[in-house]
């Protein structure tokens, strides 16, 4: 992490409201874009990025600087998303229907921007959130299995097997 950002984080943790607001604003788009890929639903991404900002405000004193500030934020965003998905699954038997409706909406939005909805996108939407997150963190963001394990609160071995399983599923889908 850059020295200037580290200094800003230190000030934020010590109670400097402006420093924390600046940090959150600078990382807002990064976290949102991460969540679009994780949720495959821009509306859910927008909702989750707001929850993430609030959680970061509440827990800034827990950030120890051992990882990049952006990594800390996407760790929080991922946990909020996974928790939400699990809670919805318990509360709502209609989850599959709601989920496929969200994916249809996402596809429609994506194609209306003159972008092609490829089979890779289709395959990604079919992965479970846990496997999609693991594949993205490893193969798009370039984190190591130890880091992914720490981010998701699971052993590194489980992170590795989730990533491998996710890739296997993608390969199968793309047949």
């Amino acid at each position, binding site marked *: 992490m850059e020295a200037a950002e580290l200094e800003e984080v230190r000030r934020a943790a010590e109670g400097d409201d402006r420093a924390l607001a600046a940090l959150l604003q600078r990382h807002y788009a990064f976290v949102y874009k991460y969540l679009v890929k994780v949720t495959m639903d821009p509306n859910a991404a927008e909702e989750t990025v707001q929850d993430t900002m*609030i959680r970061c405000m509440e827990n800034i004193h827990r950030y120890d600087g051992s990882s990049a500030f952006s990594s800390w934020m996407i760790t929080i965003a991922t946990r909020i998303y996974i928790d939400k998905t699990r809670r919805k699954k318990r509360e709502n038997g209609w989850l599959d229907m709601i989920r496929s409706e969200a994916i249809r909406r996402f596809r429609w939005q994506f194609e209306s921007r003159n972008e092609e909805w490829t089979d890779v996108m289709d395959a990604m939407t079919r992965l479970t959130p846990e496997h999609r997150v693991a594949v993205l963190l490893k193969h798009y963001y370039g984190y190591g299995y130890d880091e992914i394990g720490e981010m998701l609160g699971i052993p590194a071995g489980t992170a590795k097997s989730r990533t491998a399983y996710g890739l296997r599923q993608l390969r199968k889908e793309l047949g």
Partner: protein
Amino acid sequence: MSRTDEQDDQELLERLQQQMKVLDDAYEPVSIPSLASLEVQVRERRRIKRRKNLIEMILFWVIGLMVIASGALLFLSAPALYLGIQAIGVAAAVTAAMIWAGKHRKEEAPHE
């Protein structure tokens, strides 16, 4: 893993990365909150948190003192009952911890 499998994987990862880059470029947040509004929110959150911490601390002390006072009273008036309750409490805690650990292992298993 054979050479072809490795090549297939490499090709798959390249396609995945390309497609995710397209997503990154296509989607921007509808609106990023202004610095001033974020600052107001941060201040408000800190105020709520301070208040919550204060209430929790007061509750902790009040309940803690009540528990200690009741424990001391019980110990003085009926020591055998007090020790019995302590033993049952420890046994219940150990059982709950074992059940929780078992459930946790089961939840993790499908992802392995």
